[in-house]
């Protein structure tokens, strides 16, 4: 029991569930095969389905997986609840849009969006990490707002793609970029959890003083989490700039991007790899479904759900799944034992 709790805490859910050896051998292949199947299916969607709105929906899911997962790396793994995530997203969008529309090769402009966000993150990281908990949250919110107001004052005009670009607009290409980015972000988060760095990062989340006392470089590990988090948030912004035909430059700095990342991660399950993925799918599907009929209702639903998750089910969707699964496995074992006896 203890082992399971510890394992679940550090996010290695699969390891935690495999204690009965027979079960391991019979089911170990399922996870990777299932994952490969989902990825193959996602990659084949543009070939199989020729509907722009389905593709657009899947694009949005991938974008929000990246957004949520990048926030999760900082807030879920390192425990630093940032409310300034929109700043990284906005910087990424601004950099990619400006460079790309001025003729730079897109992949380079795209990569630079992540690097620019990292540069800004490192600049603000050292001072803001002196703040704890809620103070860090409101401090980062303040920084993001300063940036948003400054951008909207200096770039008040809407940014529109040139006509030639619109004529050649290819949603399938954008979908593949989004899919690749979402998979890379999930992979990076999973690798981070398996690396030895995760020990320090998770220690900072669980108890900063204790981590410091045992010789963990607290600031270094926070900065590492921020580095990865802001890199992918910047890339998500770059993707947004690549996809939108026209938008106000300040729209990418809107606090809504932070709030969506927060909702997605909490609904799915804070601090887990699968959480932001499940959360993003749920978020986009529910939003799409409810927005057709009632414009604001989905926000009210998310608000209530969010409060319930914080108060009653801190694990989100992943937590609910975890609570159900051990019971199912125990039942399967019991029925097998009874088979052996008879």
């Amino acid at each position, binding site marked *: 029991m203890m082992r399971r709790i510890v394992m679940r805490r550090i996010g290695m859910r699969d390891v935690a569930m495999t204690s009965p050896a027979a079960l391991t051998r019979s089911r170990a292949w399922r996870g990777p095969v299932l994952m490969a199947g989902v990825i193959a299916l996602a990659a084949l969607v543009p070939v199989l389905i020729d509907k722009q709105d389905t593709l657009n929906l899947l694009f949005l899911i991938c974008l929000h997986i990246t957004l949520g997962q990048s926030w999760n790396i900082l807030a879920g793994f390192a425990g630093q*609840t940032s409310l300034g995530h929109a700043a990284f997203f906005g910087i990424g969008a601004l950099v990619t849009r400006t460079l790309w529309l001025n003729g730079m090769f897109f992949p380079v402009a795209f990569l630079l969006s992540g690097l620019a966000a990292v540069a800004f993150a490192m600049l603000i990281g050292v*001072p*803001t990490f*002196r*703040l*704890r*908990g*809620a*103070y860090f*949250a*409101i*401090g980062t*919110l*303040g*920084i993001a*707002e*300063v940036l948003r*107001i*400054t951008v909207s*004052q200096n770039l008040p005009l809407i940014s529109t793609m040139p006509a030639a670009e619109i004529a050649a607009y290819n949603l399938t290409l954008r979908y593949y970029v989004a899919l690749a980015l979402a998979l890379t972000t999930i992979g990076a988060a999973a690798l981070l959890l398996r690396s030895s760095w995760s020990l320090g990062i998770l220690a900072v989340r669980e108890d900063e003083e204790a981590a410091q006392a045992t010789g963990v470089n607290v600031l270094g590990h926070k900065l590492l989490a921020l580095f990865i988090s802001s890199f992918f948030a910047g890339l998500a912004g770059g993707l947004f700039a690549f996809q939108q035909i026209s938008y106000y430059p300040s729209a990418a700095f809107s*606090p809504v991007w932070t*709030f969506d990342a*927060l909702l997605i991660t*909490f609904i799915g399950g804070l601090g887990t790899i699968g959480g932001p993925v499940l959360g993003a799918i749920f978020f986009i599907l529910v939003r799409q479904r409810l927005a057709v009929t009632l*414009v*604001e*209702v989905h*926000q*009210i639903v*998310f*608000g*209530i759900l*969010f*409060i319930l998750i*914080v*108060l009653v089910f801190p694990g989100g969707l992943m937590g609910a799944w975890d609570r159900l699964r051990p019971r199912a496995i125990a039942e399967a074992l019991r029925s097998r034992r009874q088979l052996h006896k008879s």
Partner: protein
Amino acid sequence: MAQNIVYGLFVGGIYGIAAVGLALAFGVMNVLNIAHGELLMFGGYISFWLFSLLGIDPFVSLIICIPALFLIGLLLDRLVYRHVARLRGEAKIKNSLLISFGLVLILQNVAIRLFTADERTTQVSYIGQGINLFGIALPYTRLMGLVIALVTILALHLFLQRTDSGKAIRATAEDWEAAELSGINVPRVYMLTFALGAALAGIAGTLVSVTSSVAPSIGLDWTLKALIVVVLAGTGSIIGAFPAGLLLGLVEALSSIFISASYREVVGLVIFLLVLLIRPQGLFGSREAA
């Protein structure tokens, strides 16, 4: 120049009232209510509708607006904040922040549904009129706003200092465990505190609807203003948030003269960040209090 400063003080009075409400919940309960701006917005709408449907003067409608927001505050405390009351320090602040973020989504979208996204202003008949003092225009609406803000703060100060409930609130703010041991009903104090904070947001909202405008989206801006002021004053100082509000109004007015009107908000935020980083105990707070 002098005109700008006077207007800065008028606006600062509203900042002060809004911030004192936030500081009350934060200082006493350790609850950081990001939805404070949304409560303010509801207060603004109540006085707007009372004026445009029933023709009640916004300053008179305060006698309805204050109890209404007080009730909303009681309800929110019972429904939501009571569940984080027993958490410890840091975890409590963080969870209350997250919960109130959920409340922001709910309240803001309920407001859009009820009142549409349009901007509304309470257009009283005497809106343009005022006193002219040495060439400085003092509109009645803004003068009344500042008077109401001052009266409110004085009343709150007397309530906290002189009455038993006020003393219970201050005792709980200092040490809720000791307060509970000496027979204070802490959950009741929390409820009263949060409701008072909401009522103060209602007053600020009424003043906002008269002197500028209300819309469902104004919440975040006002929460940020109140947060800036609370951090300036130093968390834990409740009444001290009022002079800090006046100061922010003044600084904004000066920065729109010397820098640019469009960067007024940025200046406030930058000061907020600097204070947060360099002097976390606030301008008026002592080092022990932090």
